């Protein structure tokens, strides 16, 4: 048993850490967040030049052939910097869907671009009525000639505002909540009938809702088999969940470091407030929650690229549940331990707190994954 990173993985993590430390100061992040792009084109370029956007892809694609652990090492560092780039959306989820479901042509057209960072993908799987259930799809794709006509709306597509390629789920048959009948389509956001309503998000990123209004696409837009996308979506959402868990651990690490520093520096009643037992115990609880989260992030990384199974499903649901709860606990406890200063825009802690809450609203919150886990409970 060995939980240490191997030499290559450690090098990968160090590379990302150096890059984030050098390029992503808190002040710069605020500036990136306020641009129309909502992140740093320059930083994205550097990720690409260092080969980091290629990490999870096979070597034929110029990739690194990395698995869950490599992605975990990288995402944790992006989390520590509160990086705003759509890495998870484009590289992990968008790239993953195309890699798993796409035909040779589609892979050739899109995957190399995603791996090199030249092409940014965004993924629309949720809808206004779907809550977090990715099989709840009302958007329709009707066969027309060789291609399809898409109608519907995809909700909260993070990174969709600047994506070059949008992957959406749409129903080719069945009812709103059926597992069967869901298909995946990849299309350019410039296609006639695609409308994007862009907004900033509470954690400083950007996203959009996408309305599809009689959008005509060719047969080459269909990713994978018609009507059979549910399994692919579930599998790739699982990889994205593992990536989010890793990111969350990086965010929590920083949140805890900042809080601990504050407890040592801030004086009231003539002593550092870290001398007060109630704050000591809360800090210890924050550390324990982080360790629980770290363990689950490691476990989820270990199954992220394994074959689908109920065990994989359980692990990922459990991990996202722990991450959601730990994240909220650390977010709220950290603000409380800081007092008023923890609530200000100018001090970085609040931005870590907001990212932790936001992660709980991506790909299912702790309640959603608790229910999912319960539905997969093994008889003893």
């Amino acid at each position, binding site marked *: 048993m060995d939980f240490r990173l191997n030499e290559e993985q450690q090098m990968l993590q160090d590379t990302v850490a150096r890059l984030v430390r050098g390029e992503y100061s808190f002040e710069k992040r605020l500036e990136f967040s306020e641009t129309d792009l909502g992140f740093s084109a320059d930083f994205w370029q550097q990720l690409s030049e260092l080969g980091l956007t290629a990490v999870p892809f096979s070597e034929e694609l110029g990739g690194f052939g990395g698995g869950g652990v490599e992605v975990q090492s990288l995402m944790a560092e992006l989390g520590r910097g509160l990086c705003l780039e759509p890495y998870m959306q484009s590289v992990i989820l968008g790239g993953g869907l195309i890699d798993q479901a796409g035909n040779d042509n589609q892979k050739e057209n899109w995957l190399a671009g995603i791996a090199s960072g030249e092409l940014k993908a965004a993924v629309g799987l949720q809808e206004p009525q779907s809550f977090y259930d990715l099989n709840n799809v009302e958007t329709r794709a009707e066969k027309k000639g060789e291609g399809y006509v898409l109608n519907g709306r995809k909700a909260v597509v993070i990174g969709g505002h600047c994506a070059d390629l949008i992957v959406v789920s749409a129903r080719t048959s069945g009812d709103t909540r059926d597992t069967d009948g869901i298909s995946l389509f990849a299309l350019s956001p410039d296609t006639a009938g695609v409308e994007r309503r862009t907004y900033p998000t*509470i954690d400083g990123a950007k996203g959009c809702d996408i309305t599809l209004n009689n959008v005509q696409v060719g047969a080459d837009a269909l990713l994978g088999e018609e009507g059979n996308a549910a399994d692919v979506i579930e599998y790739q959402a699982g990889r994205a969940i593992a990536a989010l868990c890793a990111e969350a651990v990086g965010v929590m690490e920083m949140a805890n470091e900042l809080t601990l520093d504050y407890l040592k520096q801030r004086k009231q009643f003539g002593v550092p407030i870290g001398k007060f037992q109630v704050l000591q115990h809360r800090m210890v609880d924050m550390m324990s929650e982080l360790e629980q989260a770290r363990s689950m992030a490691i476990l989820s990384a270990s199954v992220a690229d394994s074959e689908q199974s109920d065990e994989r499903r359980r692990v990922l649901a459990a991990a996202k549940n722990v991450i959601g709860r730990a994240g909220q606990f650390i977010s709220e406890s950290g603000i409380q331990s800081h007092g008023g200063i923890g*609530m200000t*825009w100018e001090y970085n802690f609040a931005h870590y*707190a907001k990212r932790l809450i936001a992660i709980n609203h991506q790909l299912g919150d702790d309640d959603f994954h608790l229910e999912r886990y319960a539905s997969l409970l093994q008889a003893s």
Partner: protein
Amino acid sequence: MNMNYTAEELAFRDEVRAFLDEKLPADIAAKVKGFRRLSKEDHQRWQKILSEQGWYATHWPEEYGGVKWTPVQKHIWDEESCRYGVPRSIPFGVNMVAPVIIKFGNEEQKQKYLPRILSGEDWWCQGYSEPGAGSDLASLKTRAVRDGDHYIVNGQKTWTTLGQHANMIFCLVRTNTEVKNQEGISFLLIDMDTPGITVRPIITLDGEHEVNEVFFEDVKVPVENLVGEEDKGWTYAKYLLTYERTGLAGIGMSKAALSHLKQLASRRLKNGKPLIEDPTFSQRIARVEIDLTAAGISNLRIIASVEGGGVPGAESSMLKVKGTEIRQAINDLARRAIGPYALPFVEEELDLNYEGEFLSDENAAPLSAQYFNNRKLSIFGGSNEIQKNIVSKMILGL
């Protein structure tokens, strides 16, 4: 034991309802109920209506224009006004500095300031906390040095709520550095237009400008603006804090927020059904509603004991902790109820006059921001940790 209102109290409730039905402006109530921003003008417009009714100053003696309500009447007012969407009264003038002036101020100060609070001519803010003096308020450093007919004030206050609107600030300042922390503090009334005062906004994590820093550089304050005696300010400050703490439990506001949450959960869908019918979510709502019921009765027990001549003590500290936790739990659920839509921050939808299409629910836009903003509830007015210290000392003798 009788937990019902008397006939007189019921009649009073009818009177309150009739007044609110007739006089509460619909646009203001809609803002309050939808958690939208209120402008200075909104507050002033409502205050004027209340003043005309004679219901603005409920803590003051009648001779100064107050209204003599019993604790139960105040409670009825609180419940009804939260239910109707009455704006939170800005407490710094009417409920904070006024009781101090009434109890410790001289006749001139009473004549000068009280009518201006009633009329809305003065907007007060509170100069208590400093960067180095939060929970440990008595360690404050802002200096006031006597120079002839004036004090010269230097220092910095922070977390000054709505200081950007204020023309007056009441400040705790250090007039004596030779004695124990608590014994060298004085209570000064300062005109915000005095040269040397700078107000700087503090933007909070939800992007709001609600609090400020206030800087004092050689600010000349006439000695007649001292309340009570020099160096005795801590006594007055503590007197004021007891006023601050009553009502911080926010039971009425939690009831309004819960009702808002239930409406929201009836509209949002999960698994094709209203969220309020979902087993997990409905249990979460049920738990917080049960907690709120209990806290509501605790609140009534305190009110009844005050009605019987008792003084609310450490019980209000316990209730502040419980009440703020409950309200935060409701805000947490409201954010959870909108699922993925907790992420977008669609600022234009915060405007009541917004005429575009709502991204998701018409009330979704402020929910995440409100959840974050209300983390302040367990920090301000004496953090919940400080409240627990008070309880452990005053009630438990620990």
